[in-house]
């Protein structure tokens, strides 16, 4: 006879994780938007941007609050443009990968039969792939650039949402959603659009920050390995890769982009956790990493 204290649904408190994560994300976005204010990320200042021995300037140097990189470029500016890269990749690949996954999951769950078998087999393979190796393979055949990263992330990240959507559709079917609609003469498409899709939305919304965190991670990793965004376009991942040779002398080349990555990913994860608290029956969504 346990009595759970339940709050009325309308007055649920916003979880602190959501507030903290959301605030950080807004700050990172503002930083990315303000990127042009911090100067040209490509300007190689070989006279004033490097020390007399030709080494990168540390943080709080004259004219460079966050120091410079090995080519004498402003770290502040590059970090801001790197934020643009990360957020852009996260945003676009979130839509593409979750979109593709949702379509496959819906098709498998709604039409069942042969489509289901084929799609779910592919999903299994997609989930078992060694991600980075698969990405390297794709990277060898695609032209480098930000589009390549988005294609790779989409190709590798659709399987998990497909599995989620598929499971959810089966659950909804079990509750008679589909049969009722089809019986009332609705077409397959309109059943999906007006009966299934609205019920999938909360789950997809809750999943998307986790997916975004993974995408940011993955973009950085690929760019670090040379399979993602290539220099001179700034990405936190390739900034770290560029700075690796001077690491012992200029550790800020690791710390600054590393910290940006940590904070941004953590913010997305916190938002995801917060959304999970708001949708208690979605706790089965796990933190997914790449």
């Amino acid at each position, binding site marked *: 006879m346990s009595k759970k204290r339940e709050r009325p649904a309308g007055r649920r408190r916003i979880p602190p994780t959501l507030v903290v994560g959301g605030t950080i994300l807004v700050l990172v976005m503002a930083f990315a938007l303000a990127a042009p204010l911090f100067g040209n990320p490509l300007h190689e200042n070989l006279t004033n941007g490097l020390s007399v021995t030709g080494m990168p300037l540390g943080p709080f140097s004259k004219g460079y609050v966050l120091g410079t990189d090995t080519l004498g470029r402003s770290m502040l500016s590059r970090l801001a443009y790197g934020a643009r890269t990360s957020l852009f990749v996260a945003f676009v690949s979130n839509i593409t990968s979750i979109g593709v996954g949702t379509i496959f999951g819906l098709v498998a769950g709604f039409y069942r039969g042969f489509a289901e078998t084929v799609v779910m*087999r592919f999903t*299994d*393979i997609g*989930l*078992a*792939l*060694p*991600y*980075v*190796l*698969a990405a*390297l*393979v*794709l*990277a*060898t*055949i695609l032209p480098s650039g930000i589009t390549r990263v988005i294609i790779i992330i989409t190709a590798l990240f659709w399987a998990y949402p497909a599995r989620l959507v598929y499971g959810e559709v089966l659950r909804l079917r079990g509750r008679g959603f589909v049969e009722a609609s089809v019986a009332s003469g609705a077409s397959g498409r309109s059943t999906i659009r007006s009966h299934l899709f609205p019920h999938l939305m909360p789950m997809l919304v809750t999943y998307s920050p986790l997916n975004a*965190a993974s995408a940011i*991670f993955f973009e*950085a*990793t690929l760019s*670090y*390995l*040379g*399979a993602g965004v290539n220099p001179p376009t700034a990405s936190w*991942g390739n900034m*770290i890769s560029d700075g*690796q040779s001077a*690491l*012992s002398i200029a*550790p800020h080349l*690791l710390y600054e982009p*590393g910290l940006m*990555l*940590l*904070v941004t*990913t*953590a913010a997305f*994860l*916190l938002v995801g956790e917060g959304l999970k608290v708001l949708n208690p029956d979605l706790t089965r969504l796990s*933190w997914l*990493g*790449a």
Partner: protein
Amino acid sequence: MARRLIVRLFQGALTIFGVAVLTFLLEFIIPGNTAHAIAPRATAATLREITKTLHLNAPLWVQFGDYMKGLLHGNLGESYVQREPVSTLIGQRLPATALLAGAGVLVEVVVGGTLGIAAGLKRWMSRGVNAISLTFLSIPTFVLGLFLLLIFGFDLNIAPVTGGMSFGALILPALTLGLGGVPWYAQLVRDQVAESLSSSYVRTAIAKGLPDRWIIVRHVLRNAFSPALTMVGMDLGIFISGVVVVETVFGWPGLGQLAVQSLDSLDRPVVMGVALVGATGVVVMNIVVDFLRMYVDPRTKLATA
């Protein structure tokens, strides 16, 4: 049991075949001119020569047949750059990768398991594990690796920084690889331990008058072990990805480093070969884990028999 083994082997073979088809398609259809990829600055005559020797203008199914026949004989093609069979290159690197992966799993399970057990037993530890989890989940493997390298290699000067293979050189890469998986194991084991502690069978064990240590080791941990093992199987794909990154960061001479170096020189057959071997590794390890699990948790034997 034997039947199950056959079914699993068949499924595994099917998956590997699927991956092989995918690699073939990627290699032979999408990229356009392979000869050009082999020798980017060659003259038109040389390109024609390459095309002829490698049967690059044969019909697709002939090429596919050749490719598959080659695979069955362990032939993964020849490196564009090093002019050596891909299988030889992979064979040279495989032991290093296996060593690193084994050490990484060890770190992952030991550190994650210990933290998880501690957090399951003590409430205040649980908050600590949450914080640690969030931190490690938010640090990409390569950042963590470089960070450890900077601290232990350069600042404290207690670990080698030059790469290569030795026991000392194994510590940091294994740590990096393992720590990435720690949050998952810690959380999983914590939840399992907490659930087990409030279970009826633990109450029975207490009623028997057994000491706490005995109960934790023989009842609680044994029950937490099987889900942890399942997880080892499930995140092998992610784990192998970690291996690739860590090898690159530390200059560990394994398959991952080979793949990344080959990417730089656009040596496609090598990248594909490593990917194929990686996928095979995942499939094989999954089967192994599946059978280990049957041994640890007798219920799984019944469920899928």
